């Protein structure tokens, strides 16, 4: 009897421990009526005080969305999404009088960040990172703005950019990911609530890493972020995106769109750590992460590098891509994806080589544990015009346990004889010898797995900015807790 109680208690502790970032902060929301209709789109647009052209664009996207089928090709399984059972707009109540400094910010909100271990103040002071914290949909604090303004960098919520730099937004928004790209992108175009806008002027090397912490907070609120980064000639920027979300039962839809564009000799480095709630051991709850990310290397010798560490979400559907249009442009994709329990991830990249002497590198590391399913899906397309193009792809999968799956689906299309494309993929498991070696030296099984997996991912982790790398390494350990033994 006593033993049973003890077990129950133990299990309880473990269950509560399962997701360290799981809690809901109770803040009053000003929400749009539940469901999706033209009225919802108009409500959001009106709330944001948007110009006429943007409303029209949203409505066109919405109408197009209605006609589009759900993408079916990914290797993920989930019940059909009820788009009418969700809220599409939620903003912290204090939207009308925005806080000027951290002091004015809702203390409860600050508390949330503290629990997450990302106190804004500390980040500001110690890490030297300008944080545009997105709490649900409205950016509540933008720091270091002044310093950025001095060099002419524009870094603000996209809703603000629509007001202050409409010409830039109008010119580029939707030019890289058009609303008709896929159903999720169309939905985002219709109902996006906020996101980041970055413009780096000619010849400017952004003095600090730009970072946005996305948080999903309100119950039943899908998040529709839209990010647009423009790097003008000869400029450089490193952008960090990281996410955590509170624990909840109902599935949440997240359909973000990220558009990057680089002019001659410009470079964008885009890093993501994604740690949204993955659902419980039985796959209940968890975020649907349907993201469309694409970068266009328009200028000569420009470069776009995507790095992602994907550990969260119940379902990940994400293919950060590069269109290498400018001669000599470079695309890179580094990815670590970890799926545990019932998580499903279908992720990869597309490298479209158009310009001469374009180069791309793909390194993808997938770790599948529990009863999770993971797929790398990638396309390398060399057009006839891409004289001298080069690609190298490396995809490695690691399986932990005999209930999970790891799949690799690369597409290689080459139409230029001077191009060189190489693809390698391997699948293996953590060998007993490796584990034994670590255990023998006094590591626990979980520590050993974390160590080995971190080694397996090292190639990708080292491309992460310093602040992220530390966090991401810890995350890998946490994500694989309970996967062995």
């Amino acid at each position, binding site marked *: 009897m006593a033993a049973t109680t003890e077990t129950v208690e133990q299990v309880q502790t473990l269950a509560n421990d399962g997701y360290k970032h799981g809690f809901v902060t109770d803040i009053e929301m000003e929400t749009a009526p539940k469901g999706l209709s033209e009225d919802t789109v108009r409500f959001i647009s009106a709330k944001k005080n948007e110009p006429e052209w943007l409303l029209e664009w949203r409505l066109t996207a919405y109408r197009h969305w209605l006609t589009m089928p759900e993408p079916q090709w990914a290797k993920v399984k989930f019940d059909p999404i009820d788009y009418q059972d969700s809220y599409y707009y939620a903003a912290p109540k204090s939207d009308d009088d925005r806080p000027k400094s951290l002091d004015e910010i809702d203390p409860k909100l600050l508390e949330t960040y503290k629990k997450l271990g990302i106190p804004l103040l500390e980040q500001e002071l110690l890490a030297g990172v300008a944080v545009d914290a997105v709490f649900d949909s409205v950016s509540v604090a933008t720091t270091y703005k002044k310093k950025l303004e001095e060099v002419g960098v524009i870094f603000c919520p996209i809703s603000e950019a629509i007001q202050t730099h409409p010409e830039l937004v109008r010119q580029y928004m939707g030019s890289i990911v058009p609303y008709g790209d896929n159903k999720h992108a169309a939905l985002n175009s219709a109902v996006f609530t906020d996101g980041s806008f970055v413009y780096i002027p000619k010849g400017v090397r952004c003095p600090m890493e730009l970072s946005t912490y996305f948080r999903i907070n309100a119950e039943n609120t899908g998040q529709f972020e839209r990010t647009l980064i423009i790097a003008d000639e000869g400029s450089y920027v490193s952008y960090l995106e990281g996410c955590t979300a509170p624990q909840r039962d109902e599935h949440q839809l997240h359909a973000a769109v990220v558009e990057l564009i680089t002019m001659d000799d410009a470079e964008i480095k885009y890093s993501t750590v994604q740690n949204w709630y993955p659902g419980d051991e039985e796959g209940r709850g968890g975020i649907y992460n349907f993201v469309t990310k694409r970068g266009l290397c328009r200028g000569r010798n420009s470069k776009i590098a995507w790095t992602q560490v994907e550990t969260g979400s119940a379902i990940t559907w994400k293919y950060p891509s590069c269109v290498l249009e400018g001669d000599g442009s470079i695309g890179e994709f580094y990815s670590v994806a970890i799926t545990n329990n019932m998580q499903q991830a279908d992720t990869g990249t597309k490298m479209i080589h158009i310009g001469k002497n374009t180069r791309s590198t793909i390194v993808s590391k997938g770790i599948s544990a529990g009863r999770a399913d993971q797929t790398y899906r990638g396309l390398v397309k060399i057009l006839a015009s891409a004289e001298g193009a080069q690609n190298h792809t490396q995809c490695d999968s690691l399986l932990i346990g005999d209930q999970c799956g790891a799949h690799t689906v690369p597409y290689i299309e*080459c139409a230029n004889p001077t191009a060189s494309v190489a693809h390698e993929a391997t699948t293996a498991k953590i060998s007993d010898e490796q584990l034994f070696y670590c255990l023998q030296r006094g590591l626990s099984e979980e520590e050993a797995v974390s160590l080995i997996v971190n080694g397996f991912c090292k190639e990708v982790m080292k491309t992460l900015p310093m602040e992220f790398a530390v966090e991401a390494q810890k995350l890998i350990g946490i994500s694989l807790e309970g996967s062995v033994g």
Partner: protein
Amino acid sequence: MTRNVTKLHPFADSAPASRSDDPTWLSALRQDGLRRYRDAGLPTPRTEAWKYTNLRRLSRMLFQPVGSSVEDVSVPEDRLPKLDAYRAVLVNGRYRADLSRLDGMPKGVHVSGIADVLRASPAKLEPLLGRLAVHEGKPLADLNTAYLDDGFCVFIDDGAVLDKPLHLVSIGASSGTDPVCFYPRLLVSAGADCIATIVESHVGDGAYFSNGAAEIWVGAGAVLNHCKVQVEGAEAYHIADTAIHLSDRAVYDGFVFQSGGLLARNEVYASLDGEKIECRISGAYLATGKQHIDNTTFIDHVKPDCKSREVFKGVLDGTSRAVFQGKILVRKDAQKTDGFQLNKALLLSTGAEMDSKPELEIYADDVKCSHGATVGELDADALFYLRARGIDLETARNLLVAAFVDDAVGEIQNAAVREAVSEMVQAQFAMRNEDEIDE
């Protein structure tokens, strides 16, 4: 206003072949095939498995079903691999005993036409014929089944040993002006612990559509070498589906050489349904002009402790297009699987295109699986090395290309077959080079 409905289902206008004495299971099998084909229609690029191979041109051709058999056909010896072998011949899908040479066949090996067996002892075929074809997403194999009438039938008894290769020659011949379509079928039942080498050759003249299907059963402990040489005529369409079932400890050594046809697709499905199986499926392809050559393989690891290996190499010239799709599936129980796959392609000219899709689908953790794919041009350093030794560009290129392809041919385990195929590849190169000079 009446839309031509049959457009969606070309080739399926005529009723399936039938005789009054056909067993009911056979009629049911054909009807089932026809129904499946009509339900699915001809695959389009919207079907994932046919993403890179478009059959539009094929569907627009007006093929006539083969009528009476063509009499005046001779076996084009010069276009076949030079082998000391037993020979059986199909002309437009019909078995031709008169052209076959099966004298001295060892005891325990039975080669005949499917039509003959269907009449003499249909019960022998019932458990095998049409049982292996994987229907899902294979409408063309279904179409073959719908018109199943004749083909090769090879039975090898348990423990039998075939002393020489068995050469199965399928000849396509258009009679008169209309292009024909025909449905060659191959059934191989290799008993336990037998040893055999089978070489399939596909040749022909004129425009025709050869839509083949093969079912190969390999018993426990059997060793089967199976080489397919596809050198169809320049206007031919060749689509073939081979399904292989392997039992415990079986060794299957498969090879496909493709250089013929205007559009050719060879699809192989191997089910490793036993333990300790070794399965090799390799291939080489040469595409030139406007040719389209597709190699699609699917290796299904069902049980533990099996090995599979694939090496495909291709050379593309002119404005040709080649496709390689290779899938390795490792099911949950298939622990200790060792899977390897490699596809390399050389692009020799502007306008040629290679589409490659190697795929791993893995549900077991204790496995070793890898695949590699490369596409590129000839190595500039290697070319320079040869030229620095006084070899002219043309010869140097030819040497390197031949060596590139020979790598894959080297995967053939049977020495006699390997040499014959190697010679054929060289001959094909020589022919192509001559053509270039003529132009």
